[in-house]
């Protein structure tokens, strides 16, 4: 058969089933929509980043350090400035800010600005134009959230450390800001010349020192190359526009790809829908295929006729999906807003559209092929004898080829969509495993229902449940698809709830909810006294001693990182700033895994090194074991120690936890700060206590953990919202399959309704039978998803996050009930014809 004829025949052959098939292919549409939406969103973000990269950084080069730039670096910067290159400085650190008028305090990021920063883009303020003028006077401009937290307004005075400033206005928009972050970590900007008056940059405070330079890109590279060694030596990091652009593009691209994987699930579920729909279609077309064979068509031609139909309809389904995806893409910035530091311009991107079409058609064809093989193998004899059993079995070679293609297709799609190749393989693997698990769960639930359903239940209920096993009922496909969506959403929910529950400190009266940081040695007793005046006792006073690693087993860290042979300790672990403590007991979030704790044996013998305990994973990163020696640089003083034990630490607890703990009697005289914990039940009293401490000791930073908890809550909800949004596509695919399955069994349903009415059933009884069937459908689907979600949630919470697991049973029951309601509503809405048609009309059709 020539192709044009096959095309013509395919077109004619599809008459009468086009509308129904189009519905099935709608299940591909949703998946394509999800992918197109997320990929074109990603592409739009990339273009926006390219257009705005320079504005996002605000300069051509950023230099940054954890400590003030040393003189040698300052000398370089000086010579740069003298040569006429614009230079700006931003020093930022966290500090308590107090509004005397309202008595409110809050931990806020302080940024001291000097120079014409930003060189690119403008900071919009209210009242306008303040950004350049406010620095001449003793004034501040602040993020709007600062005023909200402090219940202050423009014109109020704010205390920062020992200095007082008047709020001149608010920042309405600054380049590079993500709305969410500025709401959680709001900033005040103060003129750099007043920074010293605050007296805040003391020992142990964490500050970021940044210098911004404006120079042509070529000069930037030359400048960096020339001073590379100097910057390396003094731990000065740098960021160029190109790097910034690359980082952002990569981060957003990764986000888009992860979300795309969730969309891919919807697409694969859609493919499942196509498969089961085509299976029904094939059942209807066996006679036509046999007839074509009788009339002399070859096997391959028969397959071509129906494959062309699948391709054409796949194209229609994918086309609808692309249009839908472009519409959704316009909504995505709203869902993701707050997570991104730039404005996203929405433009039509061609590559995601073409990719969406290709993927849609590919998926439709791949999933349609296995059932279509039955048509290809049909016996011509069937044209004469209808009762000949349904279709032949395709040859083993054909089946192997088709299932192989399906498998390779799945892996190719996953790898293409995934952020990394391994993730792609892992995704394809987990899709296969999850599908298998869902399938097993669905089948065993169905089996159990069939086997143990009470024989004594009313007829209506029994008939409804029995209908699940009606021929061509697609029960398994529907349960799989809806179950998958429920599984995704419920798993997210379970994990989210468990994470947030761990932070719910208010409910546990023994846990601290107020933390004071940066308490200096001479302030320790004073802060405790302020607490005591308010009737609050400190739950713990923990010393913190900053230090760096100087030598491992006698070898200097520089030579270790330069070593190219053998196992090199992680650079991060070697070079980071450690904040160590000392104590004589283990705390509740720790468990000893190797060596011995120094219980009762604090007296050290002469000639022995001081003992330390190292966190297990850090020990792995450093490549050290019990007995190894670490020499610390404690503010210039070398302290050699020996590892006495390794500990496992549960970091998720809101407690001061440490990588390295010293035994007492070593660091008591070293420069150190303290952390104090307290618990105050009442929110107003917490605020008052914070105010009192700030008034007495402006440098002491206090954090109300309940506020932190709310902030974390906000971030987690925002992130999960995006994932949930994508998971909705899976549920949508499930419902489309449900509608398709209902359409496939429509005639059968009408006949059944008429039969029942003819032998005396009332319309109400028939409706209740259908309702039971849909409820059973929804129940099994939701149960399948919820069961697996419970298990997956348990695994994630206990294994990945290493937290205690609690099953949010009530909420899961809610999910289950919602799904049942949804399925029942969609089902009944699609069964009106079966319920309302007068029986005689159908009887006439049947007999004449």
């Amino acid at each position, binding site marked *: 058969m020539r192709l044009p004829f096959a095309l013509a025949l395919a077109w004619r052959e599809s008459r009468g089933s086009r509308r129904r098939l189009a519905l099935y292919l709608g299940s591909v549409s949703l998946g394509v929509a999800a992918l197109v939406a997320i990929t074109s969103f990603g592409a739009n973000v990339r273009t926006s980043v390219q257009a705005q990269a320079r504005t996002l950084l605000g300069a051509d080069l950023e230099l940054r350090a954890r400590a003030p730039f040393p003189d040698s670096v300052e000398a370089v910067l000086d010579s740069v400035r003298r040569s006429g290159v614009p230079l700006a400085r931003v020093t930022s650190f966290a500090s308590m800010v107090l509004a005397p008028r309202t008595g409110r305090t809050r931990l806020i990021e302080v940024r001291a600005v000097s120079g014409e920063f930003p060189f690119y883009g403008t900071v919009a303020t209210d009242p306008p134009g303040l950004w350049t003028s406010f620095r001449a006077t003793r004034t501040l401009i602040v993020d709007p959230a600062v005023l909200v937290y402090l219940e202050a307004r423009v014109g109020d005075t704010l205390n920062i450390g020992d200095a007082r400033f008047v709020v001149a206005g608010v920042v309405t928009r600054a380049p590079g800001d993500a709305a969410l972050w500025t709401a959680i970590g709001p900033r005040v900007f103060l003129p750099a010349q007043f920074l010293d008056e605050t007296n805040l940059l003391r020992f142990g405070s964490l500050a970021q020192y940044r210098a911004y330079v404006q120079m042509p890109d070529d000069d930037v590279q030359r400048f960096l190359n020339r001073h590379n060694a100097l910057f390396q030596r003094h731990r000065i990091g740098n960021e160029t526009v190109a790097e910034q652009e690359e980082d952002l593009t990569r981060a957003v691209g990764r986000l888009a790809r992860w979300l795309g994987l969730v969309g891919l699930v919807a697409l694969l579920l859609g493919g499942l829908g196509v498969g089961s729909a085509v299976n029904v279609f094939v059942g209807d077309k066996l006679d036509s295929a046999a007839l074509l064979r009788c009339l002399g068509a070859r096997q391959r031609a028969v397959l071509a006729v129906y494959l062309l139909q699948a391709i054409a309809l796949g194209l229609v389904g994918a086309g609808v999906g692309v249009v839908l995806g472009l519409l959704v893409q316009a909504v995505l910035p709203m869902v993701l807003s707050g997570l991104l530091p730039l404005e996203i311009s929405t433009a039509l991107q061609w590559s995601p559209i073409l990719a969406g079409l290709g993927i849609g058609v590919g998926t439709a064809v791949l999933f349609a092929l296995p059932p279509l093989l039955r048509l290809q193998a049909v016996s011509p004899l069937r044209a004469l004898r209808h009762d000949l059993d349904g279709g032949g079995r395709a040859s083993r070679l054909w089946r192997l080829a088709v299932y192989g293609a399906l498998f390779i297709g799945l892996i190719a799609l996953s790898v293409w969509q995934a952020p990394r190749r391994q993730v792609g393989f892992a995704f394809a693997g987990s899709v296969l495993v999850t599908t298998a698990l869902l399938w097993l769960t669905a089948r065993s639930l169905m089996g159990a229902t069939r086997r143990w359903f009470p024989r004594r239940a009313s007829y209506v209920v029994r008939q409804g449940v029995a209908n699940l096993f*009606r021929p061509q009922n697609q029960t398994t496909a529907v349960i799989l698809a809806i179950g998958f969506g429920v599984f995704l959403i419920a798993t997210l929910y379970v994990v989210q709830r468990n994470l947030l529950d761990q932070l719910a400190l208010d409910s546990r009266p023994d846990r601290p909810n107020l933390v004071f940081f940066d308490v200096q040695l001479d302030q320790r007793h004073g802060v405790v006294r302020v607490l005591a005046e308010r009737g609050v006792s400190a739950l713990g006073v923990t010393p913190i001693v900053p230090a760096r690693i100087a030598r491992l087993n006698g070898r200097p860290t520089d030579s270790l990182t330069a070593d190219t042979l053998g196992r090199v300790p992680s650079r991060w672990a070697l070079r980071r700033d450690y904040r160590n403590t000392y104590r004589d007991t283990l705390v509740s979030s720790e468990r000893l895994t190797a060596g011995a704790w120094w219980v009762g044996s604090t007296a050290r013998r002469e000639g022995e090194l001081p003992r330390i305990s190292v966190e297990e994973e850090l020990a792995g990163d450093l490549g050290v074991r019990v007995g190894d020696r670490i020499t610390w640089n404690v503010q210039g003083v070398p302290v050699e120690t020996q590892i006495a034990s390794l500990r496992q630490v549960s970091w998720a607890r809101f407690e001061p936890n440490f990588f390295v703990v010293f035994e007492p009697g070593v660091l008591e005289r070293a420069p150190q700060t303290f952390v104090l914990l307290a618990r105050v039940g009442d929110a107003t009293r917490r605020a008052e206590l914070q105010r009192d401490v700030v008034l007495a000791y402006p440098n002491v930073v206090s954090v109300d953990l309940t506020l932190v908890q709310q902030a974390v809550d906000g971030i987690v909800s925002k992130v999960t919202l995006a994932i949930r949004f994508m998971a909705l596509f899976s549920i949508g695919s499930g419902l489309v399959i449900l509608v398709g399955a209902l359409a496939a069994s429509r005639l059968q349903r009408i006949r059944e309704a008429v039969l029942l009415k003819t032998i005396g*059933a009332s319309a109400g009884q028939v409706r209740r039978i259908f309702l039971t069937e849909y409820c059973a459908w929804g129940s099994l689907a939701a149960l399948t998803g919820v069961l697996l979600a419970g298990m997956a949630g348990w695994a994630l919470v206990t294994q990945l996050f290493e937290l205690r697991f609690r099953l949010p049973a009530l909420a899961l029951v809610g999910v289950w009930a919602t799904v049942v309601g949804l399925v029942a509503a969609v089902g009944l809405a699609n069964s009106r014809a079966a319920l309302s048609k007068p029986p005689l009309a159908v009887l006439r059709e049947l*007999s004449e």
Partner: protein
Amino acid sequence: MIIETRDLEQTYSSGGRPLTVLRQINLSIAPREFVAVMGPSGSGKTTLLGLLAGLDRPTRGVVRLDGDDLGSLSEDARARLRAEKVGFVFQTFQLMPTLTALENVLVPLELRGGADGAAAELRARQLLERVGLGDRVDHYPAQLSGGEQQRVGVARAFAAEPKVLLADEPTGSLDAETGRAVIDLLVELNRDAGTTLVLVTHDPALAARARRVIRLVGGTIVADARTEGQ
């Protein structure tokens, strides 16, 4: 009279134009009668049977079943009447594919409700025994031959001890021999239970076994004759 019709008329719209399927049907059927309705395709046989069972409201005229005017009853009231008084046998058997033979026979009893479960099951088993399927009660329709399926259909029709049994071409999908066996069964059960039997058929041999044959052509009764019967 168990069944009475007066000036019965049924009109459907077909392609937007009215199509009169039955007109001027006046019938009286006495209890225990065995009536065959014959006629060519499209003569209105099935429609007549359906109207006698109250499956739709007549466009004009009156149908009375055991004294009740079907046209004045609601859809559900007519369904209840059928559950109590009418058994139905279909040309294409129309068994529930998801139910076993026994469960299929039980459906009318269960729809009617209020029955003692054990007693209903006993009756259903006896009926299946009676139609020769005592050993196949737990089989699903797909596991039964056409003749066996129709015998389940007959057992189901008699399950609720109806006063009237309506059969629409009950042998139409069966070969001659199987068809004869099914008719034997119908006649036998009809005689034993004292049911009124109205049967639509194409088959003259089958019609010959009835006591009365009504011929329909183009929606009107052209002949209504008593025969010898069997």
